[in-house]
């Protein structure tokens, strides 16, 4: 009987691995130490070196580099230290020490990752031993800087379900009851001619003509005109999103834009349209200097403007950097809370959440809103998607959440490529910023406060953030739909949702209860926000031990047992008259192994 996926390598040193590989050549996938390579993944280089683990010290071992990942396995430690890092996670590779540096393990590589960790490897000083590995890492971690393809385009993965079918804009708008007599679907952007960072399909006020849209586009930064994101099923109040108006220093006005916003207000008879400008007031004013600005009182008489005080991408980047400083490699324990406070990370989370709460509250009380920041692809996406998550329980299901991300983030042009820097060596690029991670953090805060309201669990959120960087799937690649189209992402890469939806069981929340019409208002008070320890500090072995929720684990096991039992019962009933002998044999080991596991999983350390 073959058991290809779980080789008993634990005790055998890695020198033997080649012979073991040889014996497995019949298998399609070539095992890499003890992980199976992905279809399309190819080995590039192996090397003996020392991993300078910040938690367990120097670990001798071997590193394997493929076109997708860096895999390290320690040789002589117990328990075995392994690392499995997709190259996409790497933001920077540096040489550490020189040929003449003294001190043990002072010569090697220092790798900075996008996911809150750093990796250091030490090599022998003789004979430029790091040259080849450095160059290979540099090339494969930053393929776009070297004229190579991202791994997502080389991957040959196949899944039962095609994740690219998760989001169909028309279907989603139809679910919301659109088009209706006040709102229509416009195809004006079919060739991305109106706005190259918007999707092809837009929902706009019924009364606005295509010509109106074009004129409004001239007055909005990057032509990102106000379009509908969500409509309330009962009161028909809407969330619309856009970019800042091009008011400039001279305080320009645009009648078409003013009239257009009034059409949005009029659509459900809201007396006053509320415009949420995500920025702090000062920043909005400062934007006038570069031609932007905000909607002035006299120009937009039927609208009230509210600033939400959320800071820009640079502030968020620095904040997360500070957070990393206090949690990696060692947690700043002596003044943990005040150190955490000085990063301001939770404060930013609070502002984003409370902004979204205001939006949701306005809409559920029957008033339409317009949300924008400067370009309308960072803070705006955070606010609209969080507000939609609070208002619409559909987005709190596993598939609904995927639709939400596909719609508000991916199709509306959050600049994933620029913010994450996929495959790009320029680690200091000022365009990079953890806006999307911050959003996922906000979602996590909501799942914490409403443990039964979300169909998905924390593991899904972590998987999303991991694959945000991994470049294994096409889902988060490129800045907007038009670029994605020209790169044929949907046909040449696999969607992350293919992976997720082909095996949903590990991403489900056992305590989910369906409540269709409930609006969730999380408490956005500092006292109720928590640091997402199981993500930001997960590399720390002390935290890792607690990561897996024993409750979920237990629940899953019992469900599996129940299914197993039901199946067996069926078999038994079928074969009632003459029980075939294999049944007795097969049932015992199957049943016994999970039961045994059960006794150990209680204590998560």
């Amino acid at each position, binding site marked *: 009987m073959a058991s290809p996926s779980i080789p008993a390598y634990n005790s055998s040193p890695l020198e033997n691995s080649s012979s073991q590989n040889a014996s497995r050549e019949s298998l399609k996938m070539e095992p890499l130490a003890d992980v199976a390579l992905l279809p399309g993944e190819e080995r590039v280089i192996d090397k003996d070196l020392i991993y300078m683990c910040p938690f367990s010290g120097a670990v001798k071992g071997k590193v394997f580099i493929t076109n997708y990942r860096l895999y390290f396995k320690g040789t002589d430690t117990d328990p075995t230290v392994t690392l499995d890092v997709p190259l996409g996670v790497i933001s920077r590779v540096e040489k550490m020490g020189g040929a003449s540096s003294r001190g043990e393990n002072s010569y090697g590589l220092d790798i900075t990752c996008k996911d809150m960790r750093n990796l250091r490897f030490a090599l022998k000083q003789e004979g430029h031993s790091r040259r080849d590995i450095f160059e290979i890492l540099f090339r494969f971690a930053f393929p776009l800087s070297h004229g190579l393809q991202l791994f997502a385009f080389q991957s040959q993965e196949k899944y039962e379900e095609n994740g690219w079918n998760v989001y169909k804009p028309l279907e989603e708008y139809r679910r919301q009851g659109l088009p209706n007599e006040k709102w229509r679907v416009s195809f004006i952007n079919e060739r991305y001619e109106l706005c190259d960072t918007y999707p092809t399909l837009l929902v706009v006020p019924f009364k606005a003509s295509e010509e109106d849209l074009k004129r409004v586009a001239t007055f909005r930064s990057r032509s990102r005109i106000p379009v509908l994101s969500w409509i309330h099923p009962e009161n028909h109040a809407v969330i619309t999103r856009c970019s800042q108006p091009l008011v400039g220093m001279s305080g320009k006005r645009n009648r078409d834009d003013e009239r257009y916003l009034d059409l949005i207000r009029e659509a459900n008879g809201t007396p006053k349209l509320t415009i949420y400008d995500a920025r702090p007031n000062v920043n909005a004013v400062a934007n006038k200097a570069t031609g932007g600005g905000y909607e002035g009182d006299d120009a937009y008489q039927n609208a009230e403007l509210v600033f939400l005080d959320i800071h820009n991408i640079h502030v968020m980047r620095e904040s997360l950097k500070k957070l990393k400083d206090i949690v990696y490699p060692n*947690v700043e324990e002596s003044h943990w809370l005040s150190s955490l406070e000085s990063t301001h990370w939770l404060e930013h989370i609070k502002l984003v959440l409370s902004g979204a709460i205001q939006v949701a509250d306005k809409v559920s009380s029957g008033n339409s809103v317009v949300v924008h920041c400067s370009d309308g692809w960072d803070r705006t996406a955070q606010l609209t998607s969080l507000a939609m998550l609070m208002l619409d329980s559909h987005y709190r299901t596993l598939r609904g959440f995927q639709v939400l991300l596909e719609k508000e983030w991916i199709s509306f042009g959050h600049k994933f490529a620029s913010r994450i820097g996929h495959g790009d060596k320029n680690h200091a690029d000022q365009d990079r910023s953890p806006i999307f991670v911050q959003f996922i953090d906000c979602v996590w805060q909501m799942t914490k406060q409403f443990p*039964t309201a979300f169909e998905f669990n924390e593991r899904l959120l972590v998987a999303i953030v991991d694959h945000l960087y991994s470049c294994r799937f096409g889902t988060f690649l490129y800045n907007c739909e038009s670029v994605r189209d020209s790169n044929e992402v949907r046909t040449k890469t696999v969607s992350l949702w293919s992976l997720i939806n082909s095996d949903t069981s590990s991403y489900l929340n056992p305590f989910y209860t369906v409540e269709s019409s409930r609006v969730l208002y999380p408490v956005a008070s500092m006292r109720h926000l928590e640091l997402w320890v199981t993500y930001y500090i997960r590399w720390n072995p002390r935290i890792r031990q607690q990561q897996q929720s024993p409750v979920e684990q237990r629940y899953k096991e*019992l469900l599996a047992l*129940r299914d*197993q*039992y039901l199946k067996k019962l069926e078999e038994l009933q079928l074969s*009632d008259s003459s029980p075939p002998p294999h049944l007795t044999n097969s049932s*015992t080991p199957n049943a016994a192994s999970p039961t045994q596991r059960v006794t150990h999983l209680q204590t998560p350390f």
Partner: protein
Amino acid sequence: MEFSEHIKTANVEDVILRQPFRPSIKGTLCVTGHHLLFSDREEDSSWQLLLLLRNIDAIEKRITGSSGTITIKCKDLCVLHLDIPGMEQCLNIASSIEALSSFENIPEMYPFFHRPQDLSLEDTWGLSSTEEDFTHMQELYDRWRLSLVNSDFSICPSYPSAVIVPRSVDDETLVKAARFRQGGRFPVLCYYHSKNGMVIMRSSQPMTGANRKRCREDELLLQAVIDGSELGYIVDTRSSQQAQQARMTGGGFESKSCYSHWKRLHRHLERGKVLQESLIKLVEACGDQSHSMDRWLSKLENSKWLSHVHCTLSTAGLVAECVERDGHSVLVHGSDGTDTTLLVTTLAQLIVDPQSRTLRGFLRLLEKEWIQAGHPFQQRCAHSAYSHARLKQESPVFLLLLDCVWQLSRQFPLALEFNEMLLLRLAQEAYASDFGTFLCNCEQERCALGVKEKTHCLFQFLLRPSEREQFLNPLYEHTDLAIWPCVQPQSLHLWSGFFLRWTEHAQNMEEARQEIWTIVNQYREKAGVEETSQALSKHCEPLSVVENLMEELTVL
């Protein structure tokens, strides 16, 4: 003293009550000897507020014109406002509340008057006793015995009448050892770890004093505890500097030369005033209604409450580690042996002893380690965080215990049979109660006042079938393993269920708890259905395996 002397105005009409999370209501306020009663006069809604005066920690009155407002701050941290028409009535009510709520005469407290119809004074008071426990612990008989040397409380006033000590030590030795320990609290057994026969003992500090006195009998007693094994540990809940200083006032510690088989470890735990002030700071920070909350985390840190939680849990972890992992017996003491000592021994038992994690087991643990072992509840819980009165002996040691237990329940959601509701209830009852359980400072006082004859027992009450259910953790599953708490600061959290209960209570968490109950019950029912279908095909042999699985399943 008659209560009526203090009640000049018993009834006031048209009072407006303002309280957290409810609309303000108009009604009648009534002051009785033990309660503040408020009821609205609506026909169909018979809403009432019945507040034990004992629960009131501080009151503030503000007179404006002809009416006044009384702000009532309760020991369970709830804050109420009463708008009372008529200046005189307001002042009368305020002075009644002030006088009656600070009443210190125990036999006149409410538990002595609480007579609900469905409870009888004949009911058993208390869950168990040392004597009763000992009869069930036959594995102890070889090396341990029950001593009644303290049956009249003369050897140690704060100990119960019966204690468990090494068999080889006679009562005379105990009497002498008791004279060498502060308050007579000589080392006694509090936990026997049946896996390896190791024990946790507790006591107070030895009275070595400045000239390093010795006591042969005390040394013998401790020698008998480890009985030939290599080594025992003494976990002193003071820093070694503090232990040194204690010699100046007659106290001290076990020196290496006299107790050669015992290794002392010092872990500094705060107590007394420091803890009380920490609680006050924390409650202040939690109640801060100002909108700029940007300093919240600093304030939380400055209160030091979570670092007390950290120290307590890690010291308990240390004791548990000695017993369970290293296989050594441990003696725990600080100075008095009635506060931090009990914190550490209780939590250590929760960590290693699965029995104490059940609802009944936990309440019995509290009864044994806190009520019977003489934690001075009457002194420690006289006031909570709001009182302006000069602090005397107040200290939230028991509250700190409950907080630590809550941290355990958060880290091990399946391990404890009881839930947060129980902890909240206990926190409330310890400060003001209808029951006699938390009255007095020790068993001697309880006997003298007839507490067990004249009041009802809280623990028995909580275990009644009608009450029990609400305190159960739906996800509980017994485990024999120790539950080692994580004590890193990023793993410890503010107990928001208690500290933010009245200010920023997250309603949704309560709803979520209900939903989880429902889900669990649904699965139980489903499992029931399957059981019947299983019975149908029972003649199929392999089902015996499946049957075992079914038992597993009924857990969820």
